[in-house]
Structure formats: structure tokens, C-alpha cells
């Protein structure tokens, strides 16, 4: 019996990469939104307990990490385009669409920093952890640019709609948090 083989230059890997890419954008948008939601305001959550929101934030981030590994692997293994392993981590020196590929690498590097700092949270100071964690906004923003620049589906109507919704959601959430903060400071 012969093992099924994957044509490493065929479209399968390419579809998998695109699929994981779009899902990752939506997932990370949800992670950012949940992060903002669980950290804004005081007292128990109104509709859903805060620890649930927080737990969802963490678990979706973990899920996204797995998908990110798949996204990177499918890109590297695909021989149709020359993307090497280290291109996933090094923001410069890429061969295929180097600028936008580099953005993906930057986004990933920031995510690594956030992940590691969260795992080691009890060993580092709270202030350091918070500063690194705030880089999530940068990581997400860079990921959006990566999607728009290198994403095959970013040009299609549904692709554009997806990216727009994600960006709009985060903008609204950040604005809401800024307003809530200002109200707090004014009242005290």
C-alpha cells in the first residue's frame, strides 16, 4: 500500500495557509476584544462573569497559537513560494513579498514575547508584564497590515469585509475603554 502524498507545490497547502490566516485574524481580534472587555470597568461582569471573559481570552489565545503554528508550517512547507523557516521569525531578509512577510514575522515575535511573559508572570514584575502585554495592540495592528499586504483573499469582497469588521470592532472597543477610563478619573 502506498502512503497518500501531498503535492508540495499544489494548491492544498496554499488553501490551508489562507484559511488559517483569515481565521487567525478573526481569532486574534476576538482575543484583543476579550482582553479589553475583561479589563475595563469594575465589579462583576454584567452579562458574563469576568473570569469567564478572561478565561476565554486566554483559551482563544492558546487556540490561536496552535493555528499560528499551522499557518507558518503551511507557508514554509509549500514549495511554490520560497518562504524559509527563519522568515517566520525574522522581519527582514524575506524573498517573497519581504515587507508584508516581515510584518507577519514581527507580529509573531511580539506574540512570542507576550506568551512567554505571561507564562513567566509570577517571576517578572507586574509593570514589565503589562508593558509587554500592551504590545498586543501592535502585534494585532501589524497582523492586519500583513493580511492586507500578503493575504491572497484580502482583495476579495468577503475578505475586505472581514478585515474591516475586525478593525472597526477593535477601534470601537478601544474608544469605549478610553471613555470609561476618563469617566473614572473625572469622577474621583
Amino acid at each position, binding site marked *: 500500500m502506498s502512503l497518500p502524498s501531498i503535492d508540495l507545490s499544489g494548491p492544498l497547502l496554499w488553501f490551508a495557509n489562507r484559511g488559517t490566516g483569515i481565521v487567525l485574524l478573526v481569532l486574534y481580534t476576538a482575543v484583543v476584544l476579550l482582553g479589553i472587555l475583561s479589563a475595563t470597568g469594575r465589579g462583576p461582569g454584567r452579562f458574563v462573569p469576568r473570569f469567564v471573559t478572561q478565561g476565554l481570552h486566554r483559551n482563544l489565545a492558546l487556540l490561536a497559537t496552535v493555528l499560528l503554528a499551522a499557518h507558518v508550517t503551511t507557508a514554509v512547507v509549500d514549495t511554490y513560494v520560497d518562504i524559509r523557516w527563519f522568515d517566520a521569525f525574522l522581519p527582514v531578509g524575506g524573498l517573497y513579498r519581504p515587507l508584508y512577510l516581515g510584518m507577519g514575522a514581527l507580529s509573531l515575535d511580539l506574540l512570542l514575547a507576550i506568551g512567554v511573559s505571561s507564562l513567566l*508572570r509570577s517571576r517578572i514584575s*507586574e509593570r514589565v508584564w503589562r508593558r509587554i502585554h500592551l504590545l498586543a495592540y501592535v502585534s494585532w495592528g501589524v497582523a492586519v497590515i500583513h493580511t492586507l499586504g500578503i493575504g491572497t483573499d484580502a482583495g476579495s469582497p468577503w475578505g475586505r469585509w472581514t478585515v474591516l469588521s475586525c478593525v472597526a470592532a477593535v477601534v470601537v472597543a478601544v474608544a469605549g475603554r478610553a471613555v470609561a477610563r476618563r469617566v473614572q478619573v473625572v469622577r474621583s
Partner: protein
Amino acid sequence: MTWTMRVDWPSCAARGLCAELLPERIHLDEWGFPVVEGTVTPDLLGLAKAAATACPHRALRLVSAG
């Protein structure tokens, strides 16, 4: 070994996750800040640890009482 929970007050921002996770020992005052009452018995130890880990500002700690 008896445990209790202590709050790092300058860090606490009254988010309320601790009271959600350990209502048996923590309830919130009228301003949203935690009121910790009593010691943490062995059956509540897991929840207490979860409450301490869940605090977004790491303002809650499990410490040995006495």
C-alpha cells in the same frame, strides 16, 4: 497550614474577578473593593489559587495565616 488571602491595595482596581471566583470568602464593598473574611480551608484552596491567578493586576495573594 492555614492560609488566608491578602490584598495589595495600591494595585487593586476593583475589577471583581476575585469575588466571582471565591464568593465563599470574598465579597465586594459598596465601591467594588474586596472584603476578605476568614481563612482559606483546604477545600477552598484550589478556588483561592484560581482567584489569585485571575486577578488582572495580581493584587490578591494567598499567604499563610499566623
